[in-house]
Protein backbone atom coordinates (compact mmCIF):
# COMPACT_ATOMS: atom_id res chain seq x y z
CA UNK A 1 0.00 0.00 0.00
CA UNK A 2 2.70 2.47 0.99
CA UNK A 3 4.66 1.55 -2.16
CA UNK A 4 1.63 2.38 -4.30
CA UNK A 5 1.20 5.71 -2.47
CA UNK A 6 4.89 6.54 -2.90
CA UNK A 7 4.66 5.74 -6.61
CA UNK A 8 1.58 7.95 -6.85
CA UNK A 9 3.49 10.79 -5.15
CA UNK A 10 6.49 10.46 -7.43
CA UNK A 11 4.32 10.34 -10.53
CA UNK A 12 2.08 13.23 -9.57
CA UNK A 13 4.89 15.53 -8.42
CA UNK A 14 6.88 14.72 -11.54
CA UNK A 15 3.98 15.63 -13.83
CA UNK A 16 3.45 18.77 -11.76
CA UNK A 17 7.11 19.68 -12.14
CA UNK A 18 6.80 19.10 -15.89
CA UNK A 19 3.92 21.59 -16.07
CA UNK A 20 6.01 24.11 -14.12
CA UNK A 21 8.84 23.61 -16.59
CA UNK A 22 6.48 23.97 -19.57
CA UNK A 23 4.93 27.07 -18.02
CA UNK A 24 8.35 28.63 -17.43
CA UNK A 25 9.45 27.91 -21.00
CA UNK A 26 6.22 29.49 -22.24
CA UNK A 27 6.77 32.51 -19.97
CA UNK A 28 10.20 33.04 -21.47
CA UNK A 29 9.37 32.24 -25.09
CA UNK A 30 5.85 33.56 -25.78
CA UNK A 31 5.66 36.88 -27.61
CA UNK A 32 3.19 39.07 -25.69
CA UNK A 33 1.86 39.53 -22.14
CA UNK A 34 -1.46 37.72 -22.62
CA UNK A 35 0.04 34.53 -24.01
CA UNK A 36 2.72 34.63 -21.32
CA UNK A 37 0.01 34.86 -18.67
CA UNK A 38 -1.69 31.91 -20.33
CA UNK A 39 1.52 29.87 -19.95
CA UNK A 40 1.88 30.98 -16.34
CA UNK A 41 -1.64 29.90 -15.36
CA UNK A 42 -0.87 26.43 -16.68
CA UNK A 43 2.06 26.21 -14.28
CA UNK A 44 0.07 27.67 -11.41
CA UNK A 45 -3.11 25.65 -11.72
CA UNK A 46 -2.09 22.28 -13.12
CA UNK A 47 1.50 22.18 -11.82
CA UNK A 48 0.78 23.24 -8.26
CA UNK A 49 -2.44 21.20 -8.16
CA UNK A 50 -0.56 18.04 -9.15
CA UNK A 51 2.30 18.70 -6.71
CA UNK A 52 -0.15 19.25 -3.83
CA UNK A 53 -2.17 16.16 -4.82
CA UNK A 54 1.01 14.10 -4.93
CA UNK A 55 2.10 15.28 -1.49
CA UNK A 56 -1.27 14.63 0.17
CA UNK A 57 -0.58 10.93 1.00
CA UNK A 58 2.75 11.91 2.59
CA UNK A 59 1.42 14.29 5.26
CA UNK A 60 -0.45 13.73 8.50
CA UNK A 61 -4.21 13.69 8.50
CA UNK A 62 -5.92 16.11 9.24
CA UNK A 63 -3.66 19.12 9.98
CA UNK A 64 -1.01 18.50 7.32
CA UNK A 65 -3.67 17.84 4.70
CA UNK A 66 -5.53 21.01 5.57
CA UNK A 67 -2.32 23.06 5.44
CA UNK A 68 -1.50 21.74 1.96
CA UNK A 69 -5.02 22.42 0.70
CA UNK A 70 -4.93 25.91 2.21
CA UNK A 71 -1.63 26.64 0.47
CA UNK A 72 -3.13 25.45 -2.81
CA UNK A 73 -6.29 27.56 -2.42
CA UNK A 74 -4.43 30.73 -1.43
CA UNK A 75 -1.98 30.44 -4.30
CA UNK A 76 -4.89 29.96 -6.69
CA UNK A 77 -6.68 32.99 -5.26
CA UNK A 78 -3.60 35.21 -5.42
CA UNK A 79 -2.61 33.88 -8.85
CA UNK A 80 -6.00 34.53 -10.45
CA UNK A 81 -6.21 38.04 -9.01
CA UNK A 82 -2.73 39.00 -10.15
CA UNK A 83 -3.34 37.50 -13.62
CA UNK A 84 -6.54 39.54 -13.93
CA UNK A 85 -4.79 42.76 -12.92
CA UNK A 86 -1.85 42.13 -15.23
CA UNK A 87 -4.05 41.17 -18.16
CA UNK A 88 -6.11 44.36 -17.78
CA UNK A 89 -2.96 46.47 -17.48
CA UNK A 90 -1.56 44.77 -20.60
CA UNK A 91 -4.77 45.42 -22.55
CA UNK A 92 -4.75 49.08 -21.51
CA UNK A 93 -1.19 49.60 -22.63
CA UNK A 94 -1.83 48.02 -26.02
CA UNK A 95 -0.64 44.85 -27.71
CA UNK A 96 2.96 45.97 -28.12
CA UNK A 97 3.54 46.64 -24.41
Amino acid at each position, binding site marked *: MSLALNLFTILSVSIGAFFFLAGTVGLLRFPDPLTRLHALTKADNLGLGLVVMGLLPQVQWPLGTMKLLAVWL*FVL*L*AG*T*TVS*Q*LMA*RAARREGPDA
Partner: protein
Amino acid sequence: MTLALAVDFGLALLVLAVAGWTIAVRDTFAAVIGFVAYGLLLALIWVRLAAPDVALTEAAIGSGLTGLLLLGAAARLRAIETPATAPGTALRWVAGGLCVLVAAGLAALVLWLPDPAPTLAPMAVAHLPATGLGNPVTGVLVAYRAIDTLLEAVVLLPALIGVWSLASDRCWGGAPILRYPRQDGALTLLAQVLPPFGIILGIYLCWNGADEPGGAFQGGAVLAAMWALILLAGLADAPPVSRRWLRVLLVAGSAVFLAVGLAGIWIAEAFLAYPAGYAKPLILIIEVVLTLSVAVALGLLIAGPPAEDPT
Protein backbone atom coordinates in the same frame (compact mmCIF):
# COMPACT_ATOMS: atom_id res chain seq x y z
CA MET B 1 23.69 14.56 1.49
CA THR B 2 24.87 15.33 -2.05
CA LEU B 3 21.25 15.85 -3.13
CA ALA B 4 20.82 18.54 -0.46
CA LEU B 5 24.04 20.16 -1.63
CA ALA B 6 22.76 20.14 -5.21
CA VAL B 7 19.56 21.90 -4.07
CA ASP B 8 21.64 24.47 -2.15
CA PHE B 9 23.84 25.01 -5.18
CA GLY B 10 20.85 25.55 -7.46
CA LEU B 11 19.26 27.93 -4.95
CA ALA B 12 22.48 29.96 -4.62
CA LEU B 13 22.87 30.20 -8.41
CA LEU B 14 19.23 31.22 -8.82
CA VAL B 15 19.43 33.97 -6.19
CA LEU B 16 22.65 35.28 -7.74
CA ALA B 17 21.07 35.31 -11.20
CA VAL B 18 17.97 37.16 -9.97
CA ALA B 19 20.12 39.65 -8.04
CA GLY B 20 22.31 40.27 -11.08
CA TRP B 21 19.26 40.76 -13.28
CA THR B 22 17.71 43.15 -10.74
CA ILE B 23 20.83 45.31 -10.85
CA ALA B 24 21.33 45.08 -14.64
CA VAL B 25 17.79 45.45 -16.04
CA ARG B 26 16.92 48.87 -17.51
CA ASP B 27 13.29 49.21 -16.48
CA THR B 28 12.89 50.25 -12.82
CA PHE B 29 9.51 48.53 -12.53
CA ALA B 30 11.01 45.23 -13.71
CA ALA B 31 13.87 45.67 -11.25
CA VAL B 32 11.41 45.98 -8.35
CA ILE B 33 9.65 42.78 -9.43
CA GLY B 34 13.06 41.11 -9.57
CA PHE B 35 13.70 42.34 -6.04
CA VAL B 36 10.49 40.71 -4.76
CA ALA B 37 11.54 37.40 -6.33
CA TYR B 38 15.00 37.86 -4.80
CA GLY B 39 13.44 38.30 -1.34
CA LEU B 40 11.37 35.13 -1.70
CA LEU B 41 14.42 33.14 -2.79
CA LEU B 42 16.35 34.54 0.18
CA ALA B 43 13.54 33.29 2.43
CA LEU B 44 14.07 29.80 0.99
CA ILE B 45 17.79 30.07 1.79
CA TRP B 46 16.89 31.05 5.36
CA VAL B 47 14.85 27.86 5.63
CA ARG B 48 17.88 25.91 4.39
CA LEU B 49 19.96 27.68 7.06
CA ALA B 50 17.55 26.34 9.73
CA ALA B 51 16.23 29.83 10.57
CA PRO B 52 12.45 29.69 9.93
CA ASP B 53 11.81 32.81 12.06
CA VAL B 54 14.05 34.88 9.81
CA ALA B 55 12.56 33.23 6.70
CA LEU B 56 9.09 34.40 7.78
CA THR B 57 10.35 37.93 8.46
CA GLU B 58 12.24 38.08 5.16
CA ALA B 59 9.22 36.89 3.17
CA ALA B 60 6.78 39.20 4.97
CA ILE B 61 8.82 42.39 5.47
CA GLY B 62 11.99 42.13 3.36
CA SER B 63 10.21 40.91 0.24
CA GLY B 64 6.48 41.62 0.68
CA LEU B 65 6.16 45.00 2.37
CA THR B 66 9.38 46.50 0.94
CA GLY B 67 8.33 45.23 -2.50
CA LEU B 68 4.89 46.84 -2.20
CA LEU B 69 6.48 50.12 -1.12
CA LEU B 70 8.98 50.15 -4.01
CA LEU B 71 6.34 49.05 -6.56
CA GLY B 72 4.13 51.96 -5.54
CA ALA B 73 7.04 54.39 -5.82
CA ALA B 74 8.15 52.99 -9.19
CA ALA B 75 4.62 53.29 -10.58
CA ARG B 76 4.30 56.90 -9.42
CA LEU B 77 7.74 57.93 -10.66
CA ARG B 78 7.38 56.16 -14.01
CA ALA B 79 5.78 59.16 -15.71
CA ILE B 80 8.57 61.58 -14.82
CA GLU B 81 11.53 59.25 -14.96
CA THR B 82 14.34 61.38 -16.35
CA PRO B 83 17.17 59.71 -18.27
CA ALA B 84 19.86 60.60 -15.76
CA THR B 85 23.49 60.70 -16.79
CA ALA B 86 24.97 57.28 -16.16
CA PRO B 87 28.57 57.21 -14.95
CA GLY B 88 31.20 56.73 -17.65
CA THR B 89 32.85 53.45 -18.59
CA ALA B 90 36.00 54.19 -16.59
CA LEU B 91 34.03 54.85 -13.43
CA ARG B 92 32.01 51.67 -14.00
CA TRP B 93 35.19 49.62 -14.23
CA VAL B 94 36.60 51.22 -11.08
CA ALA B 95 33.32 50.59 -9.23
CA GLY B 96 33.19 47.03 -10.54
CA GLY B 97 36.75 46.37 -9.43
CA LEU B 98 36.01 47.80 -5.99
CA CYS B 99 32.92 45.64 -5.61
CA VAL B 100 34.78 42.50 -6.71
CA LEU B 101 37.43 43.36 -4.13
CA VAL B 102 34.83 43.76 -1.36
CA ALA B 103 33.07 40.53 -2.36
CA ALA B 104 36.37 38.64 -2.55
CA GLY B 105 37.38 39.91 0.89
CA LEU B 106 34.08 38.78 2.37
CA ALA B 107 34.35 35.42 0.59
CA ALA B 108 37.82 34.92 2.06
CA LEU B 109 36.38 35.79 5.46
CA VAL B 110 33.65 33.16 5.01
CA LEU B 111 36.20 30.52 3.97
CA TRP B 112 38.47 31.23 6.94
CA LEU B 113 35.89 31.60 9.69
CA PRO B 114 37.19 30.29 13.04
CA ASP B 115 36.64 26.61 13.70
CA PRO B 116 34.94 25.63 16.00
CA ALA B 117 32.53 28.51 15.48
CA PRO B 118 31.82 30.71 18.51
CA THR B 119 28.22 30.29 19.63
CA LEU B 120 25.80 31.56 22.24
CA ALA B 121 23.34 28.72 21.63
CA PRO B 122 24.18 26.78 24.85
CA MET B 123 23.64 29.90 26.98
CA ALA B 124 20.39 30.70 25.17
CA VAL B 125 19.11 27.17 25.78
CA ALA B 126 20.29 27.01 29.40
CA HIS B 127 18.21 29.99 30.54
CA LEU B 128 15.20 29.49 28.27
CA PRO B 129 13.08 27.61 30.89
CA ALA B 130 13.18 30.70 33.15
CA THR B 131 11.32 32.69 30.49
CA GLY B 132 8.65 30.03 29.95
CA LEU B 133 9.25 30.23 26.19
CA GLY B 134 9.94 27.38 23.80
CA ASN B 135 11.33 29.34 20.85
CA PRO B 136 14.93 30.43 21.56
CA VAL B 137 14.76 33.22 18.95
CA THR B 138 11.78 34.77 20.72
CA GLY B 139 13.72 34.28 23.96
CA VAL B 140 16.60 36.36 22.59
CA LEU B 141 14.22 38.98 21.21
CA VAL B 142 12.06 39.62 24.27
CA ALA B 143 14.24 38.47 27.16
CA TYR B 144 18.02 38.36 26.66
CA ARG B 145 18.27 41.21 24.18
CA ALA B 146 15.00 42.97 25.04
CA ILE B 147 16.72 46.36 24.75
CA ASP B 148 17.32 45.76 21.02
CA THR B 149 13.71 44.83 20.44
CA LEU B 150 12.47 47.80 22.45
CA LEU B 151 14.57 50.16 20.33
CA GLU B 152 13.44 48.34 17.18
CA ALA B 153 9.81 48.98 18.12
CA VAL B 154 10.62 52.60 18.98
CA VAL B 155 12.55 53.25 15.74
CA LEU B 156 9.39 52.68 13.70
CA LEU B 157 7.92 55.82 15.29
CA PRO B 158 10.62 58.37 14.30
CA ALA B 159 10.57 56.82 10.80
CA LEU B 160 6.80 57.35 10.67
CA ILE B 161 7.14 60.92 12.00
CA GLY B 162 9.74 61.52 9.29
CA VAL B 163 7.36 60.23 6.62
CA TRP B 164 4.44 62.27 7.94
CA SER B 165 6.54 65.42 8.12
CA LEU B 166 6.96 65.25 4.32
CA ALA B 167 3.27 66.03 3.82
CA SER B 168 2.54 69.30 2.08
CA ASP B 169 1.12 72.06 4.29
CA ARG B 170 -2.42 71.68 3.01
CA CYS B 171 -2.54 67.97 3.82
CA TRP B 172 -0.99 68.34 7.28
CA GLY B 173 -2.68 65.95 9.70
CA GLY B 174 -4.85 64.52 6.91
CA ALA B 175 -5.21 60.96 5.69
CA PRO B 176 -2.68 59.09 3.52
CA ILE B 177 -4.05 57.75 0.23
CA LEU B 178 -3.07 54.25 -0.89
CA ARG B 179 -5.90 53.52 -3.34
CA TYR B 180 -5.15 51.70 -6.58
CA PRO B 181 -6.12 54.33 -9.14
CA ARG B 182 -8.33 52.01 -11.20
CA GLN B 183 -10.98 50.12 -9.32
CA ASP B 184 -10.92 46.50 -10.31
CA GLY B 185 -13.37 43.72 -9.51
CA ALA B 186 -10.66 41.10 -9.04
CA LEU B 187 -8.72 43.23 -6.57
CA THR B 188 -11.89 44.05 -4.65
CA LEU B 189 -12.76 40.36 -4.43
CA LEU B 190 -9.28 39.50 -3.12
CA ALA B 191 -9.52 42.29 -0.53
CA GLN B 192 -12.88 40.90 0.60
CA VAL B 193 -11.87 37.22 0.75
CA LEU B 194 -8.28 37.26 1.99
CA PRO B 195 -8.24 39.54 5.10
CA PRO B 196 -10.27 37.23 7.40
CA PHE B 197 -7.73 34.46 6.80
CA GLY B 198 -4.81 36.87 6.94
CA ILE B 199 -5.94 38.26 10.28
CA ILE B 200 -6.20 34.74 11.71
CA LEU B 201 -2.72 33.98 10.38
CA GLY B 202 -1.32 37.19 11.92
CA ILE B 203 -2.79 36.38 15.33
CA TYR B 204 -1.57 32.79 15.01
CA LEU B 205 1.97 33.94 14.21
CA CYS B 206 1.99 36.26 17.23
CA TRP B 207 0.49 33.70 19.62
CA ASN B 208 2.57 30.82 18.31
CA GLY B 209 5.80 32.86 18.40
CA ALA B 210 6.40 31.83 22.03
CA ASP B 211 7.08 28.21 21.15
CA GLU B 212 7.26 27.92 17.35
CA PRO B 213 8.64 30.14 14.59
CA GLY B 214 6.78 33.45 14.51
CA GLY B 215 6.43 36.47 16.74
CA ALA B 216 5.19 40.04 17.10
CA PHE B 217 6.97 41.42 14.03
CA GLN B 218 6.00 38.61 11.67
CA GLY B 219 2.39 38.67 12.87
CA GLY B 220 2.32 42.46 12.70
CA ALA B 221 3.66 42.40 9.15
CA VAL B 222 0.90 40.03 7.99
CA LEU B 223 -1.76 42.21 9.64
CA ALA B 224 -0.23 45.31 8.02
CA ALA B 225 -0.28 43.59 4.63
CA MET B 226 -4.00 42.82 5.03
CA TRP B 227 -4.69 46.44 5.95
CA ALA B 228 -2.69 47.64 2.95
CA LEU B 229 -4.69 45.29 0.69
CA ILE B 230 -7.98 46.73 1.96
CA LEU B 231 -6.67 50.28 1.46
CA LEU B 232 -5.41 49.44 -2.04
CA ALA B 233 -8.75 48.02 -3.10
CA GLY B 234 -10.46 51.15 -1.77
CA LEU B 235 -12.74 49.17 0.56
CA ALA B 236 -11.73 51.51 3.41
CA ASP B 237 -9.77 54.72 3.74
CA ALA B 238 -6.78 55.27 5.99
CA PRO B 239 -7.67 57.38 9.05
CA PRO B 240 -6.33 60.95 9.28
CA VAL B 241 -2.97 60.77 11.03
CA SER B 242 -4.05 63.36 13.59
CA ARG B 243 -6.57 60.95 15.17
CA ARG B 244 -5.77 60.43 18.85
CA TRP B 245 -6.73 56.73 18.94
CA LEU B 246 -4.35 56.09 16.06
CA ARG B 247 -1.45 57.71 17.88
CA VAL B 248 -2.26 55.86 21.11
CA LEU B 249 -2.28 52.59 19.16
CA LEU B 250 1.07 53.47 17.59
CA VAL B 251 2.91 54.14 20.85
CA ALA B 252 1.09 51.49 22.93
CA GLY B 253 3.53 48.69 22.06
CA SER B 254 6.68 50.62 22.94
CA ALA B 255 4.99 52.19 25.99
CA VAL B 256 3.89 48.85 27.46
CA PHE B 257 7.31 47.35 26.72
CA LEU B 258 9.02 50.31 28.40
CA ALA B 259 6.64 50.26 31.38
CA VAL B 260 7.30 46.56 32.02
CA GLY B 261 11.01 47.21 31.59
CA LEU B 262 11.01 50.09 34.06
CA ALA B 263 8.91 48.11 36.54
CA GLY B 264 11.63 45.46 36.33
CA ILE B 265 13.99 47.81 38.19
CA TRP B 266 11.85 47.43 41.30
CA ILE B 267 10.07 44.09 41.01
CA ALA B 268 12.98 42.21 39.38
CA GLU B 269 16.69 42.92 39.55
CA ALA B 270 17.22 45.19 36.55
CA PHE B 271 15.78 47.29 33.75
CA LEU B 272 13.92 45.03 31.30
CA ALA B 273 14.23 42.04 33.68
CA TYR B 274 11.14 39.94 34.37
CA PRO B 275 10.23 38.81 37.92
CA ALA B 276 10.66 35.05 38.38
CA GLY B 277 7.50 33.13 37.60
CA TYR B 278 5.79 36.04 35.83
CA ALA B 279 7.99 36.15 32.75
CA LYS B 280 5.62 34.29 30.39
CA PRO B 281 2.45 36.33 31.06
CA LEU B 282 4.38 39.62 30.92
CA ILE B 283 6.04 38.59 27.63
CA LEU B 284 2.64 37.63 26.21
CA ILE B 285 1.14 41.01 27.12
CA ILE B 286 4.10 42.79 25.50
CA GLU B 287 3.88 40.64 22.37
CA VAL B 288 0.15 41.19 21.88
CA VAL B 289 0.28 45.00 22.25
CA LEU B 290 3.50 45.13 20.23
CA THR B 291 1.91 43.17 17.37
CA LEU B 292 -0.92 45.70 17.13
CA SER B 293 1.42 48.71 17.23
CA VAL B 294 3.81 47.15 14.71
CA ALA B 295 0.92 46.35 12.36
CA VAL B 296 -0.39 49.93 12.46
CA ALA B 297 3.11 51.44 12.12
CA LEU B 298 4.10 49.21 9.16
CA GLY B 299 0.76 49.84 7.44
CA LEU B 300 1.13 53.61 7.80
CA LEU B 301 4.75 53.50 6.62
CA ILE B 302 3.48 51.88 3.41
CA ALA B 303 0.62 54.34 3.06
CA GLY B 304 3.10 57.25 3.10
CA PRO B 305 2.54 60.86 4.09
CA PRO B 306 -0.94 62.41 4.18
CA ALA B 307 -1.93 63.36 0.65
CA GLU B 308 -4.74 64.98 -1.29
CA ASP B 309 -7.51 62.71 -2.44
CA PRO B 310 -7.26 62.60 -6.25
CA THR B 311 -10.99 61.86 -6.66
